[in-house]
């Protein structure tokens, strides 16, 4: 590897791993002195079109409390057919099927290019995927119609063998029987009464004699399909279900003036979770909740039905004035945990102009790996296309969704493992894993000079196969006393920024806002003190090496981001942004922290420009990607030309092309991103320009405009600290000998 940059990129491409430090400090004390924790972003199911899965079981270490998987780091004695586990040093014989291996005939899992490898394992009969639609009927007519059509459309996107079910709710909760006979039947539950799983299963007639104690085994598909009238194969019930959906009416209970509709989301979810628990525990299942407003009655209600009582804002929460918050959150957390234990995930599709209670309900998706999609109405392209993309397929024609994930992380020296359940995974789902170095200070560097970590992800593929993906990585230990420069050059500032940001978001959800910013600032100052090159008390001498040079800028933008700044966003919006932030891969996460800005002009090809007010110029078009929004901003002159219609004239074909260029680039993002971003086409002076103006570094404001002499770029009317001021303060604090 010529540079760490290449090393980092190759490792991400092959293994889906980005470590904050690529040389590990050899003691706990030194690790804490590095400020940024030893941690990594890991994408368990990173799309690897070049990695065909192997059709055999992985070979495991025989030590009971190890069970690491055979990997390229293991020492192998090909003659004696023995391998040494690199985690616990146990010597293991190869299984009989490996009798023919040799140096020139190695199994894939020993080869370095297969540091990530996927096994297809046969464990019991293939279990079908299950999709349970839970639909709010307290919607406006236009919205309900659009939603119904989207659901009908989705039946064409589901695999024919998938099981599908329908629960509708408003004031009451209805579980629909999907038989093939003519008359539609449903079971109705009161929306005000909480029910236990057992009660629900009894009332739905799901109690089988041998049910008790049958925890781990899913019922054989034949029996389950026969016995469960509520979850039927798509290929059998699609026509009936299409009609049923087509005939759905708005909730019939009249809503008096000044009131909200009575929406029993809590009970609807309890019934859904209970239904799946009783029929298909431990099988991949998706509960898809569609809501057009907040829960207003029954357990889990978020706001009452009086319109004059608004739904809680951040202000209310800070003043401890949110009556239902704690109780509702607790209720949904309990449901989420039950669902997660069963390997079922819950998606929330919330489309309304006002808040719908995502703050209280977010755990349903966050704890189970489900999606949260937030829109204004079901009759929008944003919802329709995002929903379609839930069912998008990969290069093999398989769904990009995986179920029932269990991730184990093994580390060397401890022999122990840590296990997490991740009920639902997509190829982009990325976890942040934080490590603790446990070596005592001054203890010798561990044998072999390298630390190793193995990630083992078991999951149900969307084609119903059970698979195991194993990623084994190693990094060198380094003595921080003598090799601090090497450790510093192994720093991955992008990964570290995202990992710190995730920690920040985690804290922000449990602590007060200002405390998180103070914590973040403190970490940044300490990092600069440790790795900055400077003369004491001389801020102008401060320098950071290349491997850290962008890090302060990331932190600056992170502090201003909606993930840590709740001002200007509702609690639901903050929950939504945070939900997506903590599960995306590095590239997308970084876009969320520090949006990308490209400039289009007659002066040359499109180029990235500083996210700074000085980049806003009259003769440029800017394209900004914040992940949640795509903003195309036309500078003042461009806007005037556009208004005058020059693009329609033949001799100004080049102007037409210029206008089209950012649209074409935006299209690629619009075609692939999940969830679909908002699309803002604006110009100098336009009200929507605020999306751009609020993101750029306000290097020119009304405060310092005249200091630069001439008007260069668009001044931002704000009192926000600019990056320059931020950096000045940072340097001052970092070099101060009194710190």
């Amino acid at each position: 590897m010529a540079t760490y940059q290449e090393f980092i990129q190759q490792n991400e491409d092959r293994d889906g791993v980005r470590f904050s430090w690529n040389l590990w400090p050899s003691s706990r004390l030194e690790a804490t002195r590095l400020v940024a924790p030893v941690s990594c972003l890991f994408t368990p199911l990173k799309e690897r079109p070049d990695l065909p899965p192997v059709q055999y079981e992985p070979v495991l270490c025989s030590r009971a409390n190890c069970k690491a998987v055979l990997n390229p780091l293991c020492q192998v004695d090909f003659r004696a057919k023995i391998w040494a586990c690199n985690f616990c040093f146990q010597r293991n014989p190869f299984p009989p099927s490996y009798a023919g291996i040799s140096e020139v005939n190695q199994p894939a899992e020993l080869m370095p290019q297969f540091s990530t490898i996927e096994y297809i394992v046969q464990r019991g009969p293939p279990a079908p995927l299950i999709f349970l639609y839970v639909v709010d009927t307290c919607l406006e007519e236009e919205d309900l119609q659009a939603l119904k059509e989207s659901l009908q459309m989705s039946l064409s996107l589901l695999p024919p063998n998938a099981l599908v079910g329908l629960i509708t709710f408003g004031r009451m909760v209805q579980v629909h029987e999907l038989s093939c006979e003519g008359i539609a039947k449903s079971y109705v539950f009161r929306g005000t009464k909480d029910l236990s799983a057992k009660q629900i299963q009894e009332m739905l007639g799901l109690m089988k004699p041998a049910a008790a104690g049958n925890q781990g085994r899913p019922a054989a598909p034949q029996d389950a399909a026969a016995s469960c009238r509520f979850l039927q194969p798509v290929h059998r019930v699609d026509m009936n279900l299409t009609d049923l959906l087509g005939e759905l009416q708005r909730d019939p209970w009249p809503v008096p003036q000044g009131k909200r509709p009575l929406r029993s989301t809590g009970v609807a979810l309890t019934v859904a979770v209970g239904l799946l628990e009783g029929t298909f525990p431990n099988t991949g299942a998706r509960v898809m909740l569609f809501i057009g407003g907040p829960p207003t009655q029954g357990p889990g209600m978020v706001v009452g039905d009086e319109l004059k009582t608004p739904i809680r804002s951040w202000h209310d929460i800070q003043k401890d004035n949110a009556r239902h918050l704690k109780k509702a959150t607790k209720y949904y957390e309990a449901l989420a945990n039950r669902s997660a234990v069963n390997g079922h995930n819950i998606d929330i599709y919330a489309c309304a102009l006002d808040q719908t209670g995502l703050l209280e309900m977010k755990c349903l998706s966050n704890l189970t790996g489900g999606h949260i999609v937030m829109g204004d109405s079901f009759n929008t392209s944003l919802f329709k296309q995002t929903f379609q993309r839930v069912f998008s397929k990969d290069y093999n024609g398989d769904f990009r969704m995986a179920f029932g994930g269990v991730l184990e992380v093994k580390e060397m020296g401890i022999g122990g493992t840590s296990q997490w359940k991740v009920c639902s995974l997509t190829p982009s789902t990325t976890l942040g894993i934080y490590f603790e170095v446990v070596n005592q200070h001054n203890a010798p560097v561990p044998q072999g000079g390298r630390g190793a970590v193995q990630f083992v992800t078991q999951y149900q593929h969307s084609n119903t196969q059970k698979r195991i993906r194993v990623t084994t990585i190693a990094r060198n230990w380094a003595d921080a006393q003598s090799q601090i420069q090497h450790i510093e050059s192994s720093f991955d500032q992008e990964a570290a920024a995202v990992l710190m940001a995730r920690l920040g978001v985690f804290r922000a959800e449990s602590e007060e806002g200002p405390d998180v910013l103070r914590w973040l600032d403190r970490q940044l100052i300490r990092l600069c003190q440790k790795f900055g090159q400077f003369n004491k008390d001389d801020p102008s001498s401060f320098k950071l090496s290349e491997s850290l040079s962008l890090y302060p800028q990331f932190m600056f933008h992170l502090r201003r981001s909606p993930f840590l700044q709740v001002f200007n966003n509702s609690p639901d919006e903050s929950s939504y942004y945070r939900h997506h932030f903590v599960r995306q891969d590095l590239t997308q996460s970084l876009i969320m922290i520090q949006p990308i800005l490209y400039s289009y002009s007659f002066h040359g090809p499109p180029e990235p420009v500083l996210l700074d007010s000085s980049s806003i110029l009259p003769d440029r078009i800017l394209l900004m990607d914040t992940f949640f929004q795509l903003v195309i901003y036309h500078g003042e002159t461009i806007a005037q030309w556009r208004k005058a219609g020059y693009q329609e004239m033949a001799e100004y074909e080049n102007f037409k092309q210029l206008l089209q260029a950012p649209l074409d680039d935006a299209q690629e993002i619009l075609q692939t991103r999940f969830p679909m971003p908002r699309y803002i086409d604006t110009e100098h002076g336009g009200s929507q320009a605020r999306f751009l103006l609020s993101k750029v570094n306000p290097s020119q404001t009304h405060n310092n405009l005249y200091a630069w002499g001439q008007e260069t770029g668009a001044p931002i009317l704000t009192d926000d600290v600019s990056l320059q001021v931020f950096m000045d303060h940072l340097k001052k604090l970092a070099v101060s000998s009194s710190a």
Partner: protein
Amino acid sequence: MDSNMDDMYMKPGNQERGWNDPPQFSYGLQMARGPQRNLLNKRAAPPASGAGAPPPFSPSPNPLSPPRCGVAPPPLHTAPPPPGCMATPPPPSGPIRSQKEAESSQPESEPDVQAVVLVLKRALAACRRTVRDQVCNDVEKRLRLLEDGWRSGRLSLPVRRRMDALAQELQACHWDTADEIHRSLMVDHVTEVSQWMVGVKRLISETRNLSPELLEPLHYPAEPVQDPTEPDQDPTEPDQDPAEPVQDPVSPS
């Protein structure tokens, strides 16, 4: 699926219901995308002098920098862009056309409802042997809805064209292609087709499971397409005798 230009379009989002609603892609355009190019993933490096300090920018007195081909820049604000020069060439893009444009630009012949319905009915007839009556009747009901909708002019041209293509693929036993067309119609035109399309979907899935000999009637040549302005039928085609409604010999009364 046939990548017909008609099927690859983008239309604006619903700005009335959702602020800044993104544009909507047709199913064809969605599916046609190649590997991700990730065009927009670079950041500008901060200037060496300090993180984020704006470069000392001295703008020209005239914001319209002279274009490369040497045309004198017109005066401020009211001037048009420099004409005639090749400015930033836009990156290669997918074929996007406005939906309206696509519809009117292809002077193909109008698809024949009779031919389409005939194929579907024959497929249904083939299914009657092995598939439950109730299912077949349900499918038949929906095929009737399709036919009624078509004949009364309630189906738009893209839907009619794609149904024509679907029928041809079905006749040729290209099950996956037919299925893909059905999916594209459900995604792009759900409002028009949702009532009956599920019947066509079922028909495809049942027909593909039939043993080959049952599928032979599908391949019989269709009766020559009748000129819609000529109601008089060729007397050598008894099926088309206007005095007798066309009877599918195995359909229930």
